[in-house]
């Protein structure tokens, strides 16, 4: 979904909703959110600027993230982030965050975060 109010990757980290695993551009705006664990679903439907919420952690997720031009990948539900994924995100220039919240909870968190902005 597209957010009415825009916040940055750094804003999300400061809010405590997610922590940084690798930051390419902390000031990049998060303009919406998209949640899926299917790569073709993400590449075909996520919008530029979206935060991509997933529990996938294999490095193959970086190509769809790059092509869809998401603002960041957020690995949810306390899923351990692998060094291989971090390394690939650094090479591809994609910000990678992680969160202990399940995908649905983080979706609500993101919505409330932007709704609270004036």
């Amino acid at each position: 979904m597209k957010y009415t109010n825009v916040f940055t990757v750094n804003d999300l980290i400061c809010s405590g909703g997610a922590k940084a695993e690798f930051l390419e551009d902390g000031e990049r705006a998060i303009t919406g959110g998209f949640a899926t664990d299917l790569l073709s679903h993400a590449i075909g439907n996520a919008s530029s600027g979206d935060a991509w919420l997933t529990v996938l952690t294999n490095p193959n997720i970086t190509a769809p993230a790059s092509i869809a031009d998401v603002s960041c990948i957020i690995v949810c539900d306390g899923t351990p982030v692998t060094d291989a994924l971090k390394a690939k995100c650094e090479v591809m220039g994609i910000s990678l965050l992680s969160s202990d919240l399940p995908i649905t909870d983080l979706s609500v968190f993101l919505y409330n975060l932007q709704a609270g902005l004036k």
Partner: protein
Amino acid sequence: MADVFKLRYEVDGDNFMAAGAASSDVKKVLRQLGIGAEAIRKAAVAMYEGEINMVIHAGGGVADITVADDYIEIILTDKGPGIPDVDQAMQEGWSTAPDNIRALGFGAGMGLPNMKKYSDEMKIDTVVGEGTTITMRIFI
């Protein structure tokens, strides 16, 4: 008429972790050529899905990209098993990918539908037991 720009990628069917690298590179090159963002997105998505299909189903292949004045053409050629029923393969959700591939987030049965959705023209030439050639054009 401006120069026609050509690219060729050998897609390695054995290196699963590199799948998608050619598409990411195409996106970068198209941006350097000054192509518009919408056409880049369409070409990169169409190319990505084709590249992944060649890795999962055909043991790799070749991707030829041509950038002309008014279109981007992507020709994907493989010597894989071919597609027995193209109409069935075009149905969203239909997939023959094995479980270990699906566990990585692939095999959603959205590859060919995405290629059709994101290209302006698409042609599939396939012979069972010989291979498949898919030609896609995105108008600039």
